[in-house]
C-alpha cells in the first residue's frame, strides 16, 4: 500500500492549497484527483480577490500560499476596490486568464517535490483505519486526510427544469465519496449556486458597452509579485433592461428555484438573475460586468446574470441587453445543488470532531468563493501535516486574521446560506488590513514551518525596515508653524509633535510627510503603507488593542477536550445542553454561544480557573 503523511482528496482551490501547505511543512502528500485537468480550474468567474476576499488572498500569501502568486501570474486586469474608502476596507482583485491560471497552478504543484498527484476515483475510507482510503487504483495510507469535495457531494446540475447528476458542467458527481462521507453520520445541509452563460466575445458589440480599464499601477495579490510588462485588458460594463426582466418573469416557472426543484437556499450575496428580478422588482436594470477569460480565448464571462433559465430563454434575453444583442452563447448558464457538511461538526483546526485525522476544507463546509475555499485549505493542510507529525494544531483567532474570523464563524455559528467573506464580519477590521497581513501571519507561518526560504528572507528584511521606519516617524518632529510654512493648515497651538502624531492628522498623509521630512522618502512603499495607516488609525488601534487583549485573555482559557459540562457545579440543564451542543474549545468561544447566561459563564470560569 502506498503511504504518505497526508492525503488530500480534490484538486480545486482548497485541495491545491492544502496539499502545498502540508508539503511546505515537510509532509509527504498524495493529492488525489479524478483528472489532472481538474487542478486549478476556476469553476465560476475568472477573478481572484475583491472586498473581504482580497484580505483572505493576502493572508494566504503571508502564509506562503499559492492563490495570490498564481493569480498574479495569470492576471490580465488589476483593480484595487474601495480605493477611496480607507485602507482597512480596500481589497485587491485580479481578472485572470483561465488557461494561464491552470498552467501556473499545475506548475506550482509540480514544483513541490513532496506532492505526488494520484489520478484516481476515491471509493471510500479503508476498513480498519481512520486515515486510509480505497481508490480505483488501490489503497492509500496516511497519517491524516483532507477532503475537499467542493460541490460534488450529491451534486445536481439544473438547466431549466432539466436535472443531471454532477458537480460542475462536464464532471460527474463524486458518488462513492459522497456515500463514504454520508457513512460518517455528519450533519448535512443542501445549498445551491449557479453560473451565467459564457459568451463568444467576437459576437459582442464592444462599441455598445462601457469599457472599464484596470488600475494603471496594479496592486498585486501577492507581495512577492514583481512588476510585469504584460499588457492589461479592460472589462466591459452593460446593463439589463426592463425587456430583459419581462422575459425572466415570463419564464420563471421554468427555473429550478421558482419551478420547485430546489430545496436549499442560494447565496443572497450573489443572486441569480431570476432572484434579482423577483426580489428587486422595482429596479429597471442590473449591472453586468463583461470579464475576458483569457488573452487567446474569446470567451467572455458576463458577471451578474447567473441563471438556470432554459438555454433557449437565455439566448432570448441576451437580445434585450445593450451590446449583447447578437452575442452567441458558448456554454449555457446553469445552477448546481449540492450537499455540504454542517461546519459546526469541525474543530477550529478544521478536523472532524470525534474523527481524529480527518479534515474538511472548502465549499464542502458551506462556503462560497475561491478565496474562502483556499483559506480553509491552507489551514487544514497545515493542521493535517501537524496531526500526522503528532503536533498540536495551529488555531488562528479572530484578532489575527480574516482566516480566523471565517473559521471561527463556520465552526461555532454554522451556516444558513453559502458563507462569503465580508470586511464587516471582522470586528477588528481596522487592525486586520491587507498592508499588514505579512506582519500578522508570517511569524505564525514561520513558527510552524510553512514559509519557504525566499519569503522568510524577504520577511526578515521587511521587519527590519518596518522597525526602522517606526523609529524614524517617532523621532522626527515638527511644529504647527513648520506645517503652516509648508502650506498645511493645522491648528496653531504651538505644540511640536512627532511625525507619527502628525500622520494621524487628516491633512498629513504620507506624501505630505515626505515633503516635511525628506528623510522619509527612502521608506519602501509597502512599509510606508503600514506606518502611515497605523498612525492614521492610531487612536482606534490602541482602543482595539485593549479590546483584543480582553478577547485573547478569554480565548486562552482552554476548555478540556471532551469536557463534560454536566459535571460542572452551578450549570442548569439548559446551559449544559447549549454548551454540549456547541462544544466550545475555549472560554472565549463559550462566551459566543447563543443564550449562555452570565451566571453560567461565571460558573464555567470558576471551573476553568480551578482546573489550571
Amino acid at each position, binding site marked *: 500500500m502506498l503511504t504518505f503523511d497526508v492525503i488530500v482528496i480534490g484538486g480545486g482551490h482548497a485541495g491545491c492549497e492544502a496539499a502545498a501547505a502540508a508539503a511546505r511543512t515537510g509532509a509527504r502528500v498524495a493529492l488525489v484527483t479524478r483528472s489532472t485537468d481538474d487542478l486549478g480550474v476556476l469553476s465560476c468567474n475568472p477573478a481572484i480577490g475583491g*472586498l*473581504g476576499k482580497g484580505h483572505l488572498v493576502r493572508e494566504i500569501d503571508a502564509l506562503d500560499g499559492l492563490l495570490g502568486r498564481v493569480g498574479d501570474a495569470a492576471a490580465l486586469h488589476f483593480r484595487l*476596490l*474601495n480605493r477611496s*474608502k*480607507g485602507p*482597512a*476596507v480596500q481589497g485587491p482583485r485580479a481578472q485572470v486568464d483561465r488557461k494561464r491560471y491552470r498552467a501556473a497552478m499545475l506548475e506550482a504543484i509540480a514544483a513541490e517535490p513532496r506532492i505526488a498527484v494520484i489520478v484516481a476515483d476515491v471509493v471510500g475510507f479503508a476498513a480498519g483505519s481512520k486515515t486510509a482510503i480505497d481508490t480505483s487504483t488501490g489503497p492509500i495510507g496516511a497519517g491524516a486526510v483532507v477532503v475537499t469535495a467542493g460541490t460534488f457531494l450529491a451534486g445536481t446540475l439544473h438547466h431549466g427544469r432539466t436535472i443531471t447528476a454532477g458537480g460542475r458542467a462536464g464532471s460527474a458527481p463524486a458518488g462513492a465519496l459522497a456515500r463514504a462521507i454520508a457513512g460518517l453520520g455528519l450533519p448535512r445541509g443542501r445549498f445551491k449556486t449557479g453560473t451565467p452563460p459564457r459568451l463568444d466575445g467576437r459576437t459582442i458589440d464592444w462599441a455598445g458597452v462601457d469599457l472599464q480599464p484596470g488600475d494603471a499601477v496594479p496592486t498585486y495579490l501577492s507581495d512577492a509579485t514583481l512588476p510585469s510588462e504584460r499588457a492589461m485588458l479592460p472589462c466591459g460594463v452593460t446593463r439589463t433592461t426592463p425587456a430583459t426582466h419581462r422575459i425572466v418573469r415570463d419564464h420563471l416557472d421554468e427555473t429550478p428555484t421558482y419551478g420547485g426543484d430546489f430545496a436549499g437556499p442560494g447565496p443572497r450575496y450573489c443572486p441569480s438573475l431570476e432572484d*434579482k428580478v423577483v426580489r*428587486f422588482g422595482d*429596479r429597471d436594470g*442590473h*449591472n453586468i460586468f463583461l470579464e475576458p477569460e483569457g488573452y487567446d480565448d474569446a470567451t467572455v464571462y458576463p458577471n*451578474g446574470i447567473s441563471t438556470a433559465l432554459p438555454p433557449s430563454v437565455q439566448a432570448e434575453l441576451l437580445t434585450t441587453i445593450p451590446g449583447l444583442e447578437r452575442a452567441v452563447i458558448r456554454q449555457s448558464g446553469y445552477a448546481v445543488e449540492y450537499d455540504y457538511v454542517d461546519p459546526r461538526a469541525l474543530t477550529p483546526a478544521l478536523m472532524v470532531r470525534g474523527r481524529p485525522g480527518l479534515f474538511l476544507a472548502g465549499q464542502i463546509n458551506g462556503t462560497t468563493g475561491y478565496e474562502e475555499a483556499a483559506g480553509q485549505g491552507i489551514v487544514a493542510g497545515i493542521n493535517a501535516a501537524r496531526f500526522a507529525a503528532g503536533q*498540536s494544531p*495551529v*488555531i*488562528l*483567532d479572530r*484578532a489575527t486574521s480574516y482566516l480566523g474570523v471565517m473559521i471561527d464563524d463556520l465552526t461555532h455559528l454554522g451556516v444558513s446560506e453559502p458563507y462569503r467573506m465580508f*470586511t*464587516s464580519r471582522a*470586528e477588528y*477590521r*481596522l487592525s486586520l488590513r491587507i498592508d499588514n497581513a505579512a506582519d500578522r501571519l508570517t*511569524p*505564525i507561518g514561520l*513558527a*510552524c514551518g510553512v514559509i519557504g526560504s525566499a519569503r522568510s528572507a524577504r520577511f526578515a528584511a521587511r521587519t527590519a525596515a518596518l522597525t526602522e521606519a517606526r523609529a524614524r516617524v517617532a523621532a522626527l518632529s515638527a511644529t504647527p508653524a513648520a506645517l503652516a510654512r509648508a502650506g498645511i493648515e493645522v491648528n496653531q*497651538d504651538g505644540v511640536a509633535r512627532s511625525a507619527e502624531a502628525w500622520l494621524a492628522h487628516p491633512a498629513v498623509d504620507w506624501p505630505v510627510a515626505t515633503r516635511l521630512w525628506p528623510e522619509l522618502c527612502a521608506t519602501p512603499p509597502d512599509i510606508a503603507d503600514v506606518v502611515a495607516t497605523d498612525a492614521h*488609525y492610531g487612536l*482606534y488601534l490602541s*482602543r482595539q*488593542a*485593549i479590546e483584543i*487583549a*480582553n*478577547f*485573547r*485573555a*478569554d*480565548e*486562552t482559557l482552554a476548555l478540556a477536550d471532551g469536557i463534560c459540562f454536566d459535571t460542572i*457545579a*452551578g450549570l442548569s440543564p439548559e446551559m449544559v445542553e447549549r454548551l454540549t451542543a456547541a462544544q466550545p474549545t475555549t472560554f*472565549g468561544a463559550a*462566551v*459566543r454561544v447563543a443564550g*449562555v*447566561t*452570565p*451566571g*453560567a*459563564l*461565571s*460558573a464555567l*470560569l*470558576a471551573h476553568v*480557573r*480551578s482546573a489550571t
Partner: protein
Amino acid sequence: MAPGDLQRDANQSRLTPTIFALATGAPPTAIAIVRISGPATLALLTRLTGRALPPPRRLSRRTLRDPTTDDAIDTALVAVFPAPASVTGDDVAELHLHGGLAVVAAALAMLRRAGAIPAAAGAFTRRAFDNGKLDLGQVEALADLIAAETDGQRRAALGRTGTELAHHVDRWRTVLTDIRADIEATLDFAEDDDVAARPFDVADERLCALAGELRTIRAQTERGGRLRDGVTVAIVGPVNAGKSTLLNALARRDVALVSPLPGTTRDAIEVRVDLGGVLVTIVDTAGVRDTSDVLEVAGIRRGQLRAEQADIVVALGSTAFPNAIHVVSKSDRTSEGAGWRGGALHLSATTGDGIDLLESHLAARVSELTALGEPAFIAAQWQQAALDGAIASIETAQHISVAALVAEELRRTSLELERLIGRVSSATLLDHVFARFCIGK
C-alpha cells in the same frame, strides 16, 4: 502553539489602563477617598503632587494641582500601595480629599484629563482577580452569587432608570443596526449596484434622533452626573451680539477659573468656571444668521444642538430660545445702565457692569439644578458610563467623514448599548461577571 502568546505578553502591561473611582459615598461628605489603580498610578501621583512619592502605606499631606493648569485642587492626604502588596495587586494610590462637591468633581475631572479612566463597575475586583488576589473559594462563591443575582440585578438596574428603558434600548439597537447595515453595505458592496446601499450621510436623521434620545435619557436618569461633569451653560445669539465678550467677561472675572479649554471644534469655545462650588462649563456657540454657506450652516446647527444639550441657555439679543436667560448687552451705550428690564437682563460685557447680576442668577439656577442630584450617584455610574460612551461614539461618528471609522464608532455604540442593559458580549464578559460590585471596592 497559540499564535497570540507572543504579542500578548509584550502588550499586556502596556494595555492595562489605569483606573480610578470615588470609593466613598456621594458628596458632600467629610472626607472623600478616591482610589487609583494601574501601571501609571505612581507616575500620575508624582505629577499631581509635584513631589517625590511618599513612603509606601503611610498617609502624607500633599497639595494636588491640575497638571494642565497648575491650579490647586485640594490639600489632601495621599497614600501609595506599590504592587503587588495592594488590594488589586497593581500599584494603588488613595487620595483623601475634603469631601465637597466642587473638590470631588474637580479631582475626578483632573484624573480623567491626566489619562486615567473612570472605573467600570467591578473593575477593581476584576484587577484583583486577574492578579490572582482572590483565591478559588472566593471566585466560586462569587460565581454562585452572580448566578443567582445577575438577572435580578439587571432588572433592578433597569428599574432604577425607568421601566421603559429596556424597551427603548431594544428600539435603539434596531435603529442602530439599520444605520450600521447601510454603512457596511457601502463598504462591502462597493461596485454592486444591486445592493440598495445609499451613501451614508453624517447628518443622517436617524442618527441625530438616536443621539437626541440618548441625551434625553441621560438627562432624566442621571442628574447626579452633573456633580461629576458639571453644569453646561450655552451662550447663543446672532453673530456679533457680543457672545465672546460676555464669555470672556465671565471667565476673566472668575478667580476660580478651573481650566480654559481651547476650542475643541471650530464652532464652540468652552471655559470652565467654578460657580457656587459647582463646575460650570460655559460654551460660546457659533452665531445664528441666515446663510447659505454649507460649513457655516453645519456650525450653526451644531451650536443649536449644543444649546439643546445645555442645562442652561443664555440668549444674547435673541428671543428664539423660550426657556433661556435673556440678556441684552452693550448697556454702556444706553443711559439706563445695567439691570433687569422687561424680563431681560441688561448689562455691558465690555465694562463689566451687570456681570455680577448674571453671575448670581446663574449660580442660583445651577444650585437649583444640582440640588436635584440623586443620591445614587455612584450606583448609576456604570450605566452613565455606558450611556456616555454611546453618546460620545455617535457624536464622534457625526464629525468624521471616513466611512470605515464611522462604522467603527457605531460598532462601539452597539457595544455600549449592550453594556447598558447588562447583555453579555465577548469583550465585556468578565466586566459583567464582576459588575455587581460597588465601584471602588
